[in-house]
């Protein structure tokens, strides 16, 4: 029994690392562009399918394949922002961009269904096999979980470096704080917006690869499951707080893993219940810094 609990906690924390990364991408997009990218879930699935194609048809290793999928997803992100989000103006801008993202998600889902059908597939490599695991303190942690977590940490460090140690990163942070002021000091806000969206989506390439290897099977419909979790995570963590999103991610996945021991069917409900409870007490989320009052 205790064994199961420890395993669940370990799985939860490691799995949470990847969700934390994807949630961070969402938060980044929200912080700079003030929109919630509902398509993030299906984009993760797209990233997973890209890794799948590279792995199955071109026999490229999953991790190596990232060198291709990351730039591709980055391009997809920039294209989405440039084509469908940037042109939106007017007083209804926030609602429109949300619906636009929803529409884009639908289109991508449809394309994936048309291309791959509804069959469940998964990403496989030597390190995703059931027996490929490491023994720690008497229980087994699958290799892929460790690799995935390691990857997430590396990606997070790269992101941190990008945001805090480069000029571009400074522009991003400035735009997050005050887009008008940023423009006034010469920052090309449109370019920053497009690039940030691209980065936020590029992260889904990483997330997609790990998700595809650890989910036990995915298909185009998996996007809903993902986006609902990601949304719950960023709200719980507080819109606009990357740290909060990461904390919430690890918390949620661990809680779900624990509940899964007793009630597998309802485990995912933990996400939403936690969300509702937190919002009752703190409408701004755990670490949210935006105005609490309904706008």
């Amino acid at each position, binding site marked *: 029994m205790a064994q199961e609990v420890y395993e669940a906690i370990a799985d939860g924390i490691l799995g949470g690392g990847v969700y934390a990364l994807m949630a961070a991408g969402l938060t980044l997009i929200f912080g700079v562009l003030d929109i*919630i990218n509902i398509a993030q879930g299906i984009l993760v699935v797209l990233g997973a399918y890209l890794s799948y194609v590279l792995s199955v048809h071109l026999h490229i290793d999953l991790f190596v394949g990232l060198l291709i999928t990351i730039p591709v997803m980055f391009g997809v992100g920039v294209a989405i922002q440039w084509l469908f989000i940037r042109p939106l103006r007017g007083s209804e801008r926030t609602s429109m961009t949300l619906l636009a993202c929803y529409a884009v998600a639908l289109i991508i889902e449809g394309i994936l269904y048309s291309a791959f059908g509804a069959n469940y597939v998964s990403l496989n490599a030597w390190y995703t096999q059931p027996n490929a695991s490491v023994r720690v303190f008497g229980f087994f942690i699958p290799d892929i979980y460790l690799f995935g977590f390691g990857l997430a940490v590396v990606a997070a460090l790269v992101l941190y470096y990008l945001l805090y140690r480069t000029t571009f990163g400074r522009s991003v942070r400035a735009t997050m704080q005050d887009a008008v002021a940023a423009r006034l000091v010469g920052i090309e806000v449109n370019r920053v917006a497009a690039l940030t969206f691209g980065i936020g989506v590029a992260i889904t390439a990483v997330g997609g690869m790990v998700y595809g290897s650890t989910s036990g099977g995915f298909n185009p419909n998996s996007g809903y499951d993902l986006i609902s979790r990601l949304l719950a995570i960023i709200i719980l963590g507080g819109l606009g707080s990357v740290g909060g999103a990461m904390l919430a991610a690890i918390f949620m996945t661990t809680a779900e893993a624990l509940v899964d021991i007793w009630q597998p069917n309802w485990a995912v409900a933990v996400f939403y219940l936690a969300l509702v409870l937190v919002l009752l007490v703190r409408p701004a989320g755990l670490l949210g810094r935006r105005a609490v009052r309904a706008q």
Partner: protein
Amino acid sequence: MTRLACLVLVIVAAAVFPLVITNATATDIAVNAMIFVAAASAWNIFSGYSGYLSLGHAVFFGTGVYTVGIAARDWNLAGDKVFALLPLAGLTAAVIAVPLGLIALRVRRHTFVVITIAFFFIAQLTATNLKSTGGSSGLLAPVLNWTASTYNNPFYYAGLLIAAGTVLASFLIRRSRFGLQLRALRDDEDRAAGLGVRAMPVKLTAFTISAFITGLAGGLWFYFLGQAFPQFAFDPLFDLAVALMAFFGGLGTIAGPVLGALILEPAQLYLTLRITNDYLSEILLGVLFLVIILFLPRGVLPTAGEFLTAQRARLKERNRGR
């Protein structure tokens, strides 16, 4: 005067429609169109007037579905009697809307949308997992022995009644003080609150009314379709469809959602009949939505209205020049 005449004409046409056009496919589409006129108008009553986009109205639709389904099954009802369950469907949805609204309406608009999505997934999950809802096998509606040729008619008239009632409600609300306060919240909630508008009760009332009607629509839909599965009773495409219809016709107007539903629902059904590839219709829906958002952001009616006004002005200019 001409407006009233037009309205009367429309009502008469709608009333005799199934008696004139007896083609089963046509009346089938008509029933669905009525259901969505009601659902889109209901969505507009809340989201269009208040500006709080709800992407979780499928919760109320599905609640209506399951209320009628479970009640008909447990109370052994069939035939005309099942229509009497529709108000119950609406009521159940409205009752659920109150706690949901109390939670969701306290937060700002971004978060609100996300919470409605969260509620949606909780609802879908619940329906899939509970035994009383039939789980993932779904529910069956009572089998009806009505005449095949006029089978659709009772459903059509029930739908017409609900749709007409909804449009009337939309009209009355817009003209009322309640509607004014609601619309003020959309423009500047804080300022409105500062001027004496009680935001939460106003928003919650609109939310509940919207939920009631959506529940009605769901109940009727279930009975007409004959069966319900959790993923279709609680369908994310429903949320997108009603939002699209309302936007297409003109968000926040009375006729907008009606027009949107009357155009888009038959179009979508027709496409589904012609294009057997389910996924293609999904892609088309997404593309259509993007096109509308990008090129007709205020919806067809308002944009057309502006276009006509501009044309009239141009004509006047030309006449003045003579």
